[in-house]
């Protein structure tokens, strides 16, 4: 019997892959958890689109500063060595290819690496995009963190996205609660699968054709 990863376990798995010295932007939601699990011997510099480079963890209760929030509008702190910039420069960092890595949530990823993560196309609620498109288009590498299927069991990895696109052909790697999958030139290559699930079972929960890497490994949540 296979056990899917918890959200914390997905975040912990991703954290293992973030290189020492990387400039990283964490998207809203699941990606935010990753900062909790980066090994202490690695120096990772977090950027926030509202003009923070070198963002630290949440402040102690009572030490919140109204002028110091992150892209999710949560209170944060600055690390020694942090820098503040204005919005246009923050987006030059993002769009100009200066960030090593963007970790983003996703509604859907296609086999070409198209990403849909900003709108479900619901016309009743006002659309909101924020920095999602700039980040997806600009970072050197884009990793998407998401559940493998929706709450109703629909695949989120698909041949073609049916939700409105955030960016085309930008996703490099997908971390789900069932697998780690690379987006390569000719499709989707499975690197890791959770113990107890075989490739056919994973394929059955995926809306696009997968290939299994020769050197695939079990995906351990730890």
């Amino acid at each position, binding site marked *: 019997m296979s056990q899917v990863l918890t959200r914390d376990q997905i975040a912990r798995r991703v954290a293992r892959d973030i290189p020492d010295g990387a400039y990283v932007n964490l998207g809203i939601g699941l990606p935010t958890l990753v900062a909790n699990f980066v090994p202490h011997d690695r120096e990772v510099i977090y950027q926030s689109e509202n003009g923070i480079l070198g963002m630290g963890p949440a402040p102690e209760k009572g030490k919140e500063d109204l002028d110091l929030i992150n892209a999710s509008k949560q209170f944060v702190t600055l690390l020694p060595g942090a820098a503040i910039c*204005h919005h246009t420069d923050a987006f030059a960092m993002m769009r100009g290819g200066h960030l090593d890595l963007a970790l983003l949530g996703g509604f859907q990823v296609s086999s070409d690496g198209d990403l849909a993560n900003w709108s479900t196309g619901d016309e009743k609620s006002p*659309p909101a995009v924020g*920095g999602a498109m*700039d980040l997806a288009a*600009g970072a050197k590498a884009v990793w998407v963190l998401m559940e493998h299927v929706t709450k109703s069991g629909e695949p989120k990895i698909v041949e073609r996205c049916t939700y409105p696109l955030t960016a085309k052909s930008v996703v490099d790697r997908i971390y789900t609660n069932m697998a780690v999958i690379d987006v390569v030139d000719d499709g989707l290559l499975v690197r890791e699968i959770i113990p107890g699930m075989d490739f056919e079972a994973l394929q059955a929960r995926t809306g696009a054709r997968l290939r299994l890497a020769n050197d695939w490994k079990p995906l351990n949540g730890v």
Partner: protein
Amino acid sequence: MLDKRVNTLEDAVAGIRDGSVILISGFGNAGIPVELIHALIDQGARDLTIVSNNAGAGRTDLSALLATGRVRKIICSFPKTSGSVVFDELYAAGKIELELVPQGTLSERMRAGGAGLGGFYTPTAVGTDLAKGKETRMIDGREYVLEKPIKGDFALIKAERADRWGNLTYRLAARNFGPTMAMAAACTIVQVREIVELGGIDPDQVITPGIFVDRVVAVPNPQPAGQP
């Protein structure tokens, strides 16, 4: 003598005309010029186009301005902030026009407006709904979308410190859109916590040079934005 100081918030927003395009600084509740916005509400200009990252939270400042019904259109990247009740109601009722722009494109369009550029090509939004109907171009093998400048008739900005020439410093992440909006408006109006003597700001620490600023007003104890 060059003196951009004005004594009151009323003087600061004097002359804002009906139909103006107004750039308003802030991201979330940081950097929002709460007192200038309330002065604008009291001033009464209508049929406004507002350019701001969010569309207000709670019932104060930007939300209070929207609630007056004097805003025809808002250009922003993320109107759906938690607590954006006033905007949501107006939008659902079809009483406000929304132009949704990716955040970096919003900022860069204003920079282009302030820097005298006719636009720029960006990879952001290529192939998405937000690039529909826009000119695209392949440059060195990559596809880009043409985005045009945004200029304001006025900008309302919150900064930390100014001198009488209008040089500005900001505080932490409240800086956000301030420096870009200051460049992009014909008349830039700034509220600061403190106005100091000329020379009171180290030239190396000036973030917005005074040439981009028209009026400064001191608001020593600004209220937080986005209150219920």
